[in-house]
């Protein structure tokens, strides 16, 4: 049973790996779960990075910008806000927090059109910012940060910092933030995958190919392979998928302990 399930999860990935090593003829001509007649991986990679004047590399860099930098800032803002909700006293706290929960409840995809309409009004459609800025907001991260702050930062430690004359802001930066580091990584991972996964928003916002994230670029290659009968784009989409998935899988393998703790923290929400 476990073996069967593992087969089910791993076979499509095996197919992706094998297909990336094939020439175009072999991709269409040989069995998907066997090797092609010749190993063609190096040529395929070369073609991938050369296609359309190297646009693939641009897409990768864009994605690192949207997902990497975006999630980094989003987690920073989220941890700061979550800490404030947990440890500081200020008026209107719970009312503000219910606004955050409202944000958790509204799904990202349903926000794409409202965002587009506003961005169109503001004249920022088809810019880097139209996809980057929405990624900076992660209400669920604020929620998680509040939970993590309550779990990781003992009140006594903050008291001690105050006794020593550290200001509130300094206590957060020097004392609390380092204690929340595992929570920070978890929140970062969540938001990173979310932005990396997002497809509807860039599809709606962007028309300039140079601004695409990898997902959207692969989709365009793939649909042009279908609609305009460019079989070479099939292969580009396959190899491009492999190249963008491998680093993600490595990151997940390295950061296992964080996503596991984050998932269980999220599940008892």
């Amino acid at each position: 049973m476990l073996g069967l399930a593992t087969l089910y999860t791993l076979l499509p990935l095996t197919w992706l790996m094998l297909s990336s090593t094939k020439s175009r003829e072999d991709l269409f001509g040989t069995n998907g779960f066997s090797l092609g007649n010749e190993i063609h991986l190096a040529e395929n990679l070369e073609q991938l990075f050369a296609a359309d004047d190297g646009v693939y590399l641009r897409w990768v860099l864009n994605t690192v910008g949207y997902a990497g930098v975006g999630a980094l800032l989003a987690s920073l803002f989220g941890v700061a806000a979550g800490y404030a909700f947990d440890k500081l006293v200020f008026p209107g706290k719970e009312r503000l927090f219910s606004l955050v929960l409202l944000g958790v409840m509204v799904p990202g995809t349903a926000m794409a059109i409202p965002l587009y309409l506003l961005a169109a009004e503001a004249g920022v459609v088809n810019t880097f910012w139209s996809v980057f800025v929405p990624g900076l907001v992660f209400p669920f991260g604020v929620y998680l940060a509040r939970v993590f702050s309550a779990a990781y930062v003992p009140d006594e430690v903050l008291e001690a910092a105050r006794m020593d004359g550290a200001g509130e802001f300094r206590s957060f930066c020097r004392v609390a933030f380092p204690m929340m580091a595992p929570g920070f990584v978890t929140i970062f991972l969540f938001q990173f995958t979310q932005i990396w996964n997002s497809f509807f928003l860039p599809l709606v916002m962007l028309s300039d190919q140079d601004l695409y994230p990898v997902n959207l670029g692969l989709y365009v290659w793939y649909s042009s392979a279908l609609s305009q009968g460019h079989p070479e784009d099939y292969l580009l989409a396959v190899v491009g998928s492999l190249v963008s998935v491998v680093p993600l899988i490595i990151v997940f393998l390295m950061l296992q302990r964080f996503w596991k703790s984050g998932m269980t923290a999220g599940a008892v929400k």
Partner: protein
Amino acid sequence: MASPSTRGQRRTATLLLSPFFVLFTVVTLAPLAYAAWLSLFTTRTSGLGFGGTENVFSGLDNYAEALTDPQFLDGFLVVAAYCALYIPVMIGGALVLALLLDSGLAKARSFFQLALFLPHAVPGLIAALIWVYLYTPGLSPVIDFLKSGGIDISFLSADVAVFSAANIAVWEWMGYNMVIFYAALQAVPRETLDAAKVDGAGAIRTALAIKVPMIRPSIALAVLFTVIGSIQLFTEPKVIYSASSAIGSTWTPNMYVQTAAFQNNDFGLAAAASLLIAVFAAVLSFIVTRISRRGSKP
């Protein structure tokens, strides 16, 4: 009255909360408000098409149009059919796998956990691309294999499309939920399990009578989160859509919104439909939080 320390706390709170709330306003609250406003207007071409278009206040007409449009409502039916197929298989599969891992039958637990979780590290779009290749006649080894066994199936036909989309989602989410269930199972007190063993309960009986009921809150949550995710169904059908003529451009609610906005340029209707989806999801989320609160109180 405010002591220096509470004043300091307020000032720091403002400082720490501002970046999030400023962006939250720009990215969530303002677009929602703007979409709500726009949803009250309809664009009409005036006269015989001379003089361009004008925005006419139409009250709740767009909402009425969406809610009576069979294409929009059919989208929800598709999602319902998809859920009916997807949720039992995915949650059931995740549960059985978690129980197997927990029962001690399985060696190499972390290997299985990782192997099963791996698809979740693959972005939804790429998962859909991979599977659609595996669904495409002439390319797919799966179809060839089934054909050699005498089964002729067209994964991209209208009848099977719901199944095909659900399969991609099962692939992506089964391992994810298994990890959650497995973690919940680890928290089941060992004394309870030992007591059951002393009473002569077998592995299967223990699983059904003790373990599953004890992690019921986790299961309920996973189901509801899955439903909320399903309402947003877009990426996988979009990819299947470009490969198959069998499913339409308004197959799911989000596809309906996209078509209304960018093929028919009816932004009022698109805004109204988006807000309806958001409200529907928010209501479901509210139920989720209710249930989870009940679950956390013993």
